[in-house]
């Protein structure tokens, strides 16, 4: 049975003046200082508020407070209906909008029993992996700024801007694209866009090398990350951590391999696994995941060439809108479209689907009572679990370590608060 350094509900005993020693004479020794960080603080990556009690520089008590971005997504789903909620999934983890679309679509497809055509699956994987790269770029950029490597921000955003342009060319918007639908994706990837992605992804590993040159051997980066915030595998599991945070602790559990979805089993990639579970390991895992994602993207592009002209949206008329030209020419199809848009019902029952997002397992638990009003859509946000782990990891550490810790646990408040 795993034992925890930090028992839930029991705050560790407060530091007592030790008497004697250098600090013993200090009249303020042992006196706690309360500090409020956030909700508007650059190092909290959004609107997270953290209350800390400091003993000197050591954290004696810490409590994150979330909810400053709670927009009532789950309630919104019940009001809007299944289809119209797609746009809201983008805004969950807004640094990887398309991946959230995919997770939601997969859950609905499980409930409705829809099969996605092959090309649709390939495009989805392509979008997922591009999103993963984008998300890790944001992690590197923001954590870089927080730890003093401001150049990282410019390096990462240079890459991300190109990524934005690619997605812009494909979907028509830079972020919050909403391009995934039940049964596939909204439109096929244009050949020119494919070429542009190919060009970009060809230079991307070199860019990752550049990041590594900046950070991996960098003394400051190493010292501020190595050995900080170590999580053992047992702790990570007990505290419901997944994704890079679990893999950094040496557990090679990746939903893309373990429970493949969207045809991930046909791609050749490796799962990045750390050893020590500290911030530095999590950083290395992210770096390696970017390289592996680039590999998958390349394979996707190859597969896209092979399946050229294939179906990318299922012909399932229960949930999928009829093609636009038919709607314009036929009355039945128009009525059909109207029916789907206004009251599309999913069969009675419940389904869960979890995907490997860049921060952990992003799951959607959807329940329907057979009518067009959703009964429940619960979003299992990996970010919330990452925030939850902050006290477990930060307790008893130096206050300055908090910055690397918050950065490396990697959460986005849109998803944490929903």
């Amino acid at each position, binding site marked *: 049975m795993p034992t925890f350094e930090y028992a839930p509900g029991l705050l560790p005993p407060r530091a007592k003046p030790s008497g004697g020693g250098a600090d013993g004479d200090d009249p303020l020794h042992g006196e706690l200082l309360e500090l409020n960080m956030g909700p508007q603080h650059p190092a909290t990556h959004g609107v997270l508020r953290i209350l800390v009690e400091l003993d000197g520089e050591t954290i004696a008590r810490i409590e994150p407070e979330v*909810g400053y971005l709670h927009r009532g997504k*789950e309630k919104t789903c*019940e009001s809007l209906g299944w289809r119209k909620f797609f746009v809201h999934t983008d805004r969950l983890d807004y640094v990887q909008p398309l991946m959230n679309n995919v997770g939601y679509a997969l859950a609905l497809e*499980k409930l409705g029993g829809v099969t996605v055509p092959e090309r649709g699956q390939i495009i989805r994987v392509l979008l997922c992996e591009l999103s993963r790269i984008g998300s890790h770029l944001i992690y590197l950029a923001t954590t870089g700024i927080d730890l003093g490597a401001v150049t990282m921000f410019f390096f990462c955003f240079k890459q991300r801007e190109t990524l934005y342009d690619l997605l812009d060319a494909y979907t028509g918007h830079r972020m919050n694209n909403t391009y995934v639908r039940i049964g596939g994706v909204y439109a096929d990837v244009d050949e020119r866009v494919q070429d542009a992605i190919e060009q970009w992804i060809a230079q991307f590993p070199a860019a990752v090398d550049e990041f590594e040159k900046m950070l991996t051997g960098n003394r400051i980066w190493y010292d501020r990350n190595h050995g900080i915030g170590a999580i053992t595998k047992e702790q990570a599991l007990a*505290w*419901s951590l997944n994704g890079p945070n679990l893999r950094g602790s040496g557990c090679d559990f990746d939903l893309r*391999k373990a429970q493949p979805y969207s045809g991930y089993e046909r791609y050749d990639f490796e799962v990045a696994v750390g050893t020590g579970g500290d911030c530095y390991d999590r950083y290395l895992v992210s770096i390696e995941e970017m390289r592996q994602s680039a590999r998958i993207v390349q394979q996707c592009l190859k597969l896209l060439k092979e399946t050229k002209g294939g179906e990318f949206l299922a012909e399932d008329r229960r949930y999928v809108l009829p093609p636009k030209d038919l709607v314009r020419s036929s009355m039945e199809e128009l009525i059909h479209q109207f029916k789907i848009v206004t009251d599309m019902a999913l*069969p009675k029952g419940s389904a869960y689907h979890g995907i490997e997002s860049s921060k952990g397992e992003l799951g959607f638990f959807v329940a329907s009572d057979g009518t067009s009003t959703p009964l429940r859509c619960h979003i299992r946000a990996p970010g919330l679990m990452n925030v939850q782990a902050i006290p477990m990891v930060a307790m008893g550490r130096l206050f300055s370590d908090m910055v690397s810790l918050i950065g490396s646990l990697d959460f986005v408040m849109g998803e944490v608060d929903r």
Partner: protein
Amino acid sequence: MSAPSANALDRVQSGLAALNPKSIAARDGMPAFEIEAEQVREACRLLRDACGFETNTFVTAIDHFPAEPRFELFWQFLSVQHNDRVRLSARVTGAHPHVASIGDLYPGTQYSERECYDMFGVVFDGHTSHAGGLKRLLMPEGYDHFPLRKDFPHQGIEPDKLYNAWFQRRFERHEREHADV
């Protein structure tokens, strides 16, 4: 790796045999069991110790208002070593339901339980966490309602009440302090 849920059903059925759970056919093919609300702690302990489910994925609820029993609670677990999942559910009645907390068995459920309380008003007895007891997670402390209940309107009830009260207090303090100016 084994395919998910290949043997989870048998494992859980033999592990939880003492509690005699009711197996449910879920639409996603995941092994799902319905148990009595009083058995939750025991069932989760067995899942952890006898069936090898190390991780809790979520704790949540569904409000079946106005039907009774009103709330259906869900606990979903993942086993990394066996690579499969299981979902437990239990029904509780009434508008102010209570159920036992499993925060000490699975520390990762602390926030999920707080969220469930915040959104549905389901009280998890014995909940302990670093925040000290069962508190609201997402809505501000002091909010009167539970937003995800079906009888709560989407656009809310007095959403700005707390802000207005705060602003009024602040304004009055400002007036007092600058009364002489």
